Structures are given as C-alpha cells and as structure tokens.
C-alpha cells in the first residue's frame, strides 16, 4: 500500500533541462512544486578533475544503469525484440540534471520549415512527394510563435554564436560571441566558402566568455579542455541544469527535489490525474504524491512508457494507424566522412560544441524538386577533443590489430579530420514505441519496446550528405577521403547520437497528436508531457534548444492553467 504524501500544486517527474526549466518558471511565480528524480543527487563538485576517458566515455559513468531498466529493440515487426543489454547507439542520462549534464552543448534552432513541414512540403512540391507511409505532420505552432521561447532559452544558457543566412531568424543577438576557431575549423570554412556554401561557427553552450543570465546564474568561460561529451564540466563553463535552472528553482523556496524516487504510474480516472505513484529506490517503499498538475519531463523513452503503463491516451497501432502514444518515434540520420592529412592538428584540444557548420543542405534551404528525399541535414566539422581509447583512425585496408595497426593509429591520430552530417529523421508508419510483452525492469514493469529502422528516405538522404562531406574534405586538401554512403539497417550498438524523439507528439488535432501546442495532454488536461517526445519529426539538427524552447512554452501554458484550469487549445 502506497504511503500518501502531502499534496503539492505541481509534481514534476524527472529533473533535467525540461524539468528544471519548468520548475524554475513555476517556482518563481510562487507555485509549490516537487521534482521526483529517480536518480541520485548531483553537485557541481562531482565534475571537478574527472578527466578520465575510461570511466566516463567508455564505461558511461553518467548514464542510466541498464541492469535496472533498459528497452527492447527490433528493426521491424517480424523480428523478436531483444533487450538493449549494453549502451551503444544512444546514451541515456541519469541522476539530477539528466542528459543535460553530459550533453555537448550544440545549440541550433529548428527551422520555420520544421514546424510547418507538411504544409510547406505540399506547397513547394505537392502532396505526392509525401510517401503514404510517412505520417509527416505540422507541429501545431509556427516558428514565429516559438521564437520568443528560443530567445528565452538562449538567455538562460548564454549561447555563444554568430548569425548566418542559412539558419532560423533571431529576434535577439547571441548572448555571447562565437567560440574560438581552430586551424581545422578555418580550413573547413575556407573550403566551404570556395564551394559557394555559407559556413559559420557553431552555436555553443560551452561559452566563449563568462555570462550571467537573467536569473543571476553565471556560466564561466570555456577552457577548451576537451572533456565535454559524456562528462560534466570541470569549470561550469558548459550550461547545464545544475548551474542554471535547478538552483534558480531551489532558491525560491518553492521547489523541492526528491531523489531516488522512481515514478512508475500516473494516477488517472479517465479524465484527469490526481498525482503519481513512485517507489523509493533505496527502500523499495511505495508512495503516492498527490498533485493538482503533473508534468512528465523524463526523456522520450520514459515519458512514452509512463503514459502506456498508466493507460493514458490511445496507444498507437501501426496496422490501423490509430492512436497516438508511441507514434512517430524518430532519431537522426547520421552520415560521416574522414579525411587523412599530412599535417598534425591539435585535436586533443576542443569543446563539445566547438565547430564550423554549413546549412546549405539542411531543411528546405535547397531545391528538392529532383531529389529522392525530403529535408536535409546540417554539416559540421567539430573539434570536441579526441581521446586515445576511442579514436584510432586508420586508412582503409589497414589491419585492425598488430604492428601495422599500432603504427597507423598513432600516425593518423592527429592527422585525421572528420566531417559529420546530422540528417533529419522523418516519421515512418512502422517506426514506433510500445510496451514489450516479455522483458521487465527491476520492479517487474514492462520495458519499452522500440521498433525502428532506416527508411528509403533516410538512406537517400545519407547518401546525398555523404557525397557533400566528401566534396568538402577534398576541397580541404585531404590526401584520402573515406565515407560510408550506405547506412544499411539501424544498429543499436555503434554510437550514433542521443537524439531520440517522438512518442508523445504535439499538434493541433487530438486524432493525430497526443499533446497540444502547450504540451498539455488532449486526454488529460492537468497532465503536461514535455521534451523531445513532443517532436512530430526530428530536424537535421541537435534537439536541445528546441526542447528548451518547448519547455518555456509549456511553462507558460502551465502557469495559465494553474490560474484558470481548462484545455489550453481546442
């Protein structure tokens, strides 16, 4: 029997970027919020002098403990889904701050095209261009209406960057100037320029200079120490929830974080929620936390899983194309190319979001009339800082072990530059999330089941981007360029990116979406589901700023709802 706790106005499930943003906005307005975080507490001192590749980058110190909970995976419905036993393709965060701690800090904004992708695709190319099995949807809100929330997120985190004619328009300047340029970034920019493209320095949450945000929180200047990706920042120079929104919320006195609290079910009477059931992971004791409003901010996987487990919203059925929960799971279509050079670059140095970028082949920035895919992807040369266990570049034909491998991997360690494209991931009828019929977590609750593969659209997009990457590397003067134009089937083991999206998507129609444009559930008006789970598709970009913007949008909606409870959209 669950012990009932004192009622709160707002219960927030999961305290990372989204949970932290919403907590700070609500707590500042005087609302009593509790954040239920299933992981441990974390402090910024946890990240001081942790420059340890094996522990963090290889053994995933900051990531979810899969022995307690994972998901199952299959490429299609004919396969038996099996557990993701080890972390690989994507790295699920855990503990206070969530994946907002180990992110790289890439800060692009999604395009106006993204928010109205169905309408604009039809306008520009005709409805025939959208395949029958691609449930491509508008997001129920325009970029113009989202822009103020993007600006708000930039202000909170202090984004460093510069304008570019190929990126989404901005109403405000970048809070801080762009990051420094490395030699490889300059070579990239020169090559891109001579190919008629429009290079710029990537927008970054590793800050070019110290910055104090409107809440009075300071983010320090980046030292380019290279321990960003998969690490917490040594210097509080990478914006994360622990140095911004979480302390902002806590300092109001209206926000309480309860760690080790694994929410397993949302109470639901068929109309509204009255709170959440959780288990204290230290004692195994069950609790009920009553709340007037419940916010799910527990990442794509857990947002979807909690709704399915709680019977809220209609589960998506790919056969009949009915229901919404689990629909439009999307990812990111990655392409990459490596160039081998004579000279050595200082590649040990870097920052998570340090890079040069071009978007001439992203979104609808280029004509798709004669192409066999929609959308596109950003192209980047990043200098995140290479590390010796994970980085062993060798030219094709080199053995993978022994003397020759040893020599080549040492020789090319600083002589290899990689370019990557993050391609948009458009929805496919048979790519979706539901509950696994066999495998369970350590509580005995069913695991989430992912059914996902790359589509024809994805393969064509990747091949196109791969050719563009090769052109740029050749222009940069590489002696030899290696790329992989055929991405094959999606494989859950090799690391690709932690840009999982969809499952609880937003829109203007309750038949085809789970939440409205304030991320309020159509089927449960006092439940808001926030995060990249709301994306109806994934753009050719990193998702975090769009998650941040949607979180601010949701916070505005929640405040309005707390004043006057009602459906915020019809």
């Amino acid at each position, binding site marked *: 029997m669950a012990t009932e706790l004192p009622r709160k106005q707002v219960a927030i499930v999961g305290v990372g970027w989204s949970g932290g943003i919403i907590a700070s906005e609500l707590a500042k307005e005087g609302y009593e919020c509790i954040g239920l975080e299933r992981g441990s507490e974390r402090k910024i001192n946890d990240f001081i002098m942790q420059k340890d590749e*094996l522990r963090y980058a290889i053994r995933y110190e900051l990531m979810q*403990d*899969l022995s307690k909970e994972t998901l199952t995976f299959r490429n299609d419905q004919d396969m038996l889904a099996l557990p993701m036993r080890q972390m690989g393709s994507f790295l699920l965060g855990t503990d206070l701050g969530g994946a907002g701690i180990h992110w790289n800090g890439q800060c692009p904004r999604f395009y106006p095209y993204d928010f109205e992708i169905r309408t604009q695709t039809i306008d520009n190319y005709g409805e025939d261009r959208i395949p029958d099995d691609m449930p491509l949807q508008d997001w129920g809100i325009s970029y113009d209406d989202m822009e103020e929330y993007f600006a708000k997120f930039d202000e909170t985190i202090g984004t460093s960057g510069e304008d570019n004619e190929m990126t989404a328009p901005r109403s405000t300047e970048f809070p801080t100037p762009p990051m420094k340029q490395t030699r490889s970034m300059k070579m990239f920019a020169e090559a891109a320029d001579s190919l008629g493209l429009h290079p710029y320095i990537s927008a970054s949450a590793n800050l070019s200079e110290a910055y104090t945000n409107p809440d009075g929180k300071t983010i320090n200047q980046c*030292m380019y120490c290279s321990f960003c990706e998969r690490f917490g920042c040594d*210097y509080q120079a990478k914006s994360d929830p622990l140095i911004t929104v979480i302390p902002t919320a806590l300092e109001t006195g209206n926000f309480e974080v309860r760690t080790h609290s694994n929410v397993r079910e949302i109470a639901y009477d068929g109309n509204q929620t009255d709170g959440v059931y959780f288990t204290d992971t230290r004692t195994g004791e069950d609790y009920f936390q009553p709340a007037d409003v419940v916010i799910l901010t527990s990442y794509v996987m857990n947002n979807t899983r909690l709704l399915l487990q709680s019977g809220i919203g209609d589960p998506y059925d790919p056969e009949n194309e009915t229901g919404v929960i689990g629909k439009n799971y999307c990812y990111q279509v990655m392409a990459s190319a490596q160039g081998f050079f004579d000279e*050595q670059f200082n590649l040990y140095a870097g920052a998570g979001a340090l890079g040069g970028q071009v978007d001439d082949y992203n979104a609808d920035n280029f004509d798709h009339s004669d192409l066999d895919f929609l959308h596109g992807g950003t192209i980047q040369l990043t200098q995140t800082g290479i590390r*010796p*266990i994970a980085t062993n570049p060798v030219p094709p034909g080199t053995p993978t072990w022994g003397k020759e491998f*040893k020599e080549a991997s040492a020789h090319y360690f600083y002589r290899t530059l990689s370019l990557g494209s993050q391609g948009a991931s458009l929805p496919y009828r048979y790519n979706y999330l539901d509950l696994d019929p066999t495998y369970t977590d350590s509580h005995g609750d069913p695991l989430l089941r992912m059914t996902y593969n790359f589509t024809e659209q994805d393969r064509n997009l990747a091949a196109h981007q791969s050719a563009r990457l090769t052109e740029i590397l050749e222009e940069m003067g590489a002696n030899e360029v290696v790329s992989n134009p055929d991405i094959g089937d999606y494989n*859950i083991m090799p690391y690709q990116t932690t840009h999982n999206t969809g499952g609880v998507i937003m829109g203007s129609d309750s038949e085809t979406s789970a939440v409205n444009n304030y991320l309020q559930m159509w089927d449960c008006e006092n439940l808001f589901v926030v995060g990249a789970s709301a994306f109806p598709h994934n753009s050719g970009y990193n998702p975090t700023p769009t998650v941040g913007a949607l979180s601010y949008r949701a916070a505005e909606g929640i405040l309005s709802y707390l004043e006057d409870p009602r459906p915020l959209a019809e």
Partner: protein
Amino acid sequence: MAEENNQSGMTRRDFLKNSGLVVGGVVGGGILGSLLTNSFTDDTSPATDTEGDQTDQTGGDEQLTKARMFFKRQEDFRVLSAAVERIFPDDETGPGAIALAVPFFIDKQLAGEYGFNSREYMEGPFHEGAPTQGPQTGMRRREVFLYGVSRIQDIAQDQFGEAFFDLDGEQQDEILGHFQNAEVDMTGVTADAFFTMLRQATLEGVYADPVYGGNLNMDGWRIKKYPGGQMAFFDVIEADEFVEMEPISLHAHHT
C-alpha cells in the same frame, strides 16, 4: 609539415595559480573561488610534489599493483599476455601491451564491475538475435575471458602441439585470426565477439589513465603524443602549429 613545439604540461595546481589570467574576471566567486582556496591549502602541505610523482610512476608502490586479482591460473594469464602483446606489440613506435601492463589492467577490470557486467541488462530469456540488436549473451565478461583464453590454448595445442605463449609471433597471429574470423567453435559466445572484446580491452589498457594499472608511466599516451587530462587548452586552441606537451594523469590532479 607543421613544426612541433614543446610545451610543458600544466597541473591543476599550476593552472589554478594562473587561472586569474585565463578565466579573467570570474575567479573569486563560486566553485573556482573555493578551488583556489583548496589549492592554497595544498600549497602548505608537504604532499604536493606532483611533478616528482609523475616521473616516478614505475618505481616504488606502482610495481606492487602488478599482481593478479582475477586470473587464478598462471597459465591463463600467460596466454592472455601473449595474445594482447600480438594485438599491440612492442616495436619502434613504442612499448607493447606487456610493457604497458595491459594484462594486469585487464585482470583488474575483470575482477570488478566490468567483469560482472554490473550495469548492463543481464536478465533472460536469452536469444541469439540479429547483428543489429547488439550482444545478447548471458555470459559475463569474466566467464567469456576465461573461456576464450582456454580456447586459445586449445587451438595452439591442436594446431601446433605447444602452449600458445611458446609459439612464434606468426603462429600466434594465425590463431588469433581464427578467432577474429569466427572460425573457432565456442558455446554461449562467438569467437569473433570474444576477439572484439579482447582487442577493445587491450586498447583500453594501453590508453586508459594509469590509475587503472595499464598505460604504465603514461607511455601508452606518449605513443600517440596524447597530453592526458590537461587543465586547459585555452592558449593552444587557435594555434596553427602542432603543440606537443608532457602528459598529465589523474594522479597529478588528485594528490
């Protein structure tokens, strides 16, 4: 070809002494301020001779960690050592896996979380699965390594009538190649999966921080001119020429 400069590495203490220059106006508040205070305290303590420790890592206590925590049989450990030395051999590029203490690194790893797959999902039912579904074996790494090493020894005896560690390099490579190409029968795990694990563990032992028992004296890092966990590259990041520096390990930062 870019000219190679030499620049001495910067420890945490050096960095903090200079951080007023690098971080500009932000020092004095928050965590950087408290770090400065700590480092000031460190300066008054006698146990902060980090430069000396860095150059003395093969002496003294370091050697006492070269002992087995996991492999019970000397024979198994000798097979493992011979195998990792073929994967990462001693040559003019630099020391090989044995000189870098990689076998002891692997032994220590297998004795702990890594060997028990502690943070991985190990519940059944178990099925082979498609290659896109990742490893599906229910065997833990400690079992896989013991089993794999014994299979290496079996094949050496069958094919050449001698212990694996007594064969010459070419013969050893031939046997490892059989594993890499999945030409050896194994139950519960495939030979190529074991080989992939062995290769990866070898590279980890060569390049992980010396705190784990491999990469002895940071000589693995020196093969790649990797500078280790430096405090900052603020002054190097824009350099056009390659800048080489002495590596720094966690030892310099944590003691």
